């Protein structure tokens, strides 16, 4: 815009020259941007179609509620204007009757029955049996009386409220359940009944276990990375291979090996018993200890590698300078060397933490029921009860949790690199 304004009222000194120069510069900039854009376009498109799109599609499943309005279209229409008080009018009953006869035996009706049954046990058989009876002998006379006659539940306001609530295209049922909440008969949000809410526990457990694993990796990985960075190339390469070796073995093989090593009659217990250190085997597996040991072992390289690359770039001159200026060894390490390694520590930490949050195989095989993390429940809902809405809701919440944590992390340590440099 400003360029046009300038062209309208040209300043007296070298008007054409400057504008054309500016315009040329802008054009060059634009071309440059386009060229950069063209270079990353294939990758961007690839990511959008293979990564973002499926994720958005799956997250949509957490609120998607297609079952009831697909199977019972007339009922959905008839209930659209219902006040949610008392019982709906004759027209809604007639619509339901027509829908049930129409949908009898169809997969859509089974899906709708299953969906309603999630919120209230008994709805499946109510829907399926009503459809069966109606198809067997189509009723004559008013639908309301006939349906209530057939099953008293059709004469209850709660039943109709449940149907009306789920006739909408979207639902918060899955997300609420994933937060240990639910809607009561009247539609108000209340806590899950005593002893049935588990997900807040599971989310807490997932974060806590990931935190412990990250901490262990920091403590164990730091000295190793330091050693690798300080040794001469030949020895450090050999050690590096030892660090990378776990990367080349399948995760299942490693988990199975840990079972063999840690179980009651395993190598560790047998060795300790033979040495007389213990007389009862230690329970090291199928509990939290086993999960921690194995997860730390698997994730350690992810901590060591970023740390090593940062430490490799730190010149030993700084430490020498600090010591020669009279700073005690530990203090000079803590004040001079350690702050420079923080970016590596932070990168490794966030990598390990985010990887642990999504862990499934290791806790499933090495842990007991109390060690199962969120991903176990995602797998349970995906594979066993085939409740993809629930699986999607749990995944969505996990994604939100990670995003929040990452933002916080970025605020806290995102600027350390600059901080270290400006120091």
């Amino acid at each position, binding site marked *: 815009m400003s360029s046009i304004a300038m062209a309208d009222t040209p300043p007296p000194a070298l008007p054409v020259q400057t504008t054309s120069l500016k315009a040329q510069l802008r054009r060059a900039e634009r071309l440059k941007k386009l060229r950069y854009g063209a270079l990353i376009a294939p990758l961007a498109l690839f990511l959008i179609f293979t990564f973002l799109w499926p994720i958005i599609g799956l997250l949509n499943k957490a609120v998607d509620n297609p079952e009831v309005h697909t199977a019972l279209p007339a009922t959905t229409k008839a209930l659209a204007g219902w006040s949610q008080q008392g019982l709906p009018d004759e027209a809604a009953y007639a619509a339901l009757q027509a829908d049930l006869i129409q949908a009898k035996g169809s*997969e859509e009706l089974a899906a709708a029955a*299953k969906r309603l049954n999630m919120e209230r046990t008994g709805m499946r058989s109510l829907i399926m049996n009503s459809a069966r009876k109606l198809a067997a002998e189509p009723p004559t006379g008013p639908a309301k009386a006939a349906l209530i006659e057939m099953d008293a539940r059709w004469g209850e306001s709660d039943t109709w409220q449940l149907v009306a609530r789920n006739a909408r295209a979207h639902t918060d049922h899955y997300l609420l359940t994933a937060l240990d909440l639910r809607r009561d008969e009247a539609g108000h949000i209340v806590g899950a009944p005593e002893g049935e809410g588990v997900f807040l526990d599971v989310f807490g457990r997932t974060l806590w276990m990931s935190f412990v694993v990250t901490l262990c990796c920091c403590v164990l990985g730091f000295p190793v990375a330091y050693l690798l960075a300080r040794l001469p190339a030949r020895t450090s390469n050999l050690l590096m291979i030892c660090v990378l070796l776990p990367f080349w073995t399948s995760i299942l093989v490693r988990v199975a090996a840990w079972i063999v090593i840690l179980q009651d009659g395993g190598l560790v217990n047998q060795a300790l018993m033979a040495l007389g250190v213990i007389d009862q085997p230690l329970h090291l597996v199928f509990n939290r200890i086993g999960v921690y040991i194995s997860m730390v072992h698997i994730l350690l390289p992810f901590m060591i590698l970023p740390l090593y690359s940062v430490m490799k770039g730190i010149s030993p001159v700084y430490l020498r300078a600090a010591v020669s200026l009279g700073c005690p060894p530990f203090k000079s390490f803590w004040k001079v060397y350690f702050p420079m390694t923080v970016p590596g520590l932070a990168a490794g930490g966030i990598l390990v933490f985010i990887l642990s949050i999504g862990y499934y195989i290791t806790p499933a095989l090495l842990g007991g029921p109390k060690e199962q993390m969120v991903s176990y429940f995602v797998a349970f809902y995906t*594979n066993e009860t085939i409740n993809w809405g629930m699986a999607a809701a749990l995944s969505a919440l996990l994604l939100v949790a990670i995003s929040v944590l990452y933002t916080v992390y970025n605020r806290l340590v995102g600027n350390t690199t600059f901080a270290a440099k400006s120091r």
Partner: protein
Amino acid sequence: MSVSSRAFSALAIAAGLVAAGTSQAQSSLTVISFGGVNQQAQIKAFYEPFTKSTQIPLVKGEYNGEQAKVKAMVEAKQVSWDVVEVESPELARGCEEGVYEKLDYSKIGNKKDFLPAAVTECGFGFFVWSTVMAYNADKLKTAPVTWADFWDVKKFPGKRGMRKGAKYTLEFALMADGVAPNDVYKVLGTKAGVDRAFKKLDQLKANIQWWEAGAQPPQLLASGDVVMSTAFNGRIAGAQKEGKNLKIVWTGNIYDIEAYAIPKGAPKRDLSYKFLAALAKPENQKVFSGEIPYGPTHVKAMGQIEPTLAATLPTAPANMKTAIATNTAFWVEHGEDLEQRFHAWAAK
């Protein structure tokens, strides 16, 4: 033989192998069962006769009964499993939801020849199996008799194995709490009954080692990890054959009929029906019961089994005395809800 001709013959052999591979892939049948000794018995009794008579090789797979894979295949219209072994509640649910084909019994056998419960809309039931209490007789001096004993950690110290899931676990808990076998499903149908079952499980929770695959209980019992376990009766018999001193308690066992079903849209339907027909033959079922002590569903096969063997089957009158049949309708209705609650409870 010159180099070039040798190379040519090698090429020809390779081409032949590739051709054989593809032709085999086109004319084979993929059969998914629960694996282990059960699969071994099925191979002897059903797979081999089927392959002998049709010349069609079977591709054998196994799973633990999770229906998601089958459902995903059917929805994606990419069905690579031709016949699948399914437990009755999952079969009934899958039938309603259009996961399995409705069967045409004229291609399998005469309906009247089988136990009525074996002939369902979407699956053909080919054996009767039971979930029983089993114990390691080397580890326990006195034999447990009832489910209350199973819960009695004072009298019988040691861990217990149970299948990870609500199905059967809740029934056993109620029986341990003194509910008569015939009333179990009536009680479990009420909220108070479910709470009662979970409360009973709470008492034992610290001593339970959960198992998922049928092959695990005999292993857990033999290794001494658990002293008692719920188990599929045939698997215990398999371990006894290997010389393990495991014993079955038939009190309050829960029996069910196992079926094979055809996932909807499976491409080789004619062959799948031939496979189901092989399951239906009484002579094959008789061989199966001899391999693994599960009861036949063909009425004629029952008469042909020798008495000593017949006494070890779930269908033996003595073993049926306090047994209950899996209430399929109950589990179709309450399955999802109770499995969800069970997993929430177990993870606490």
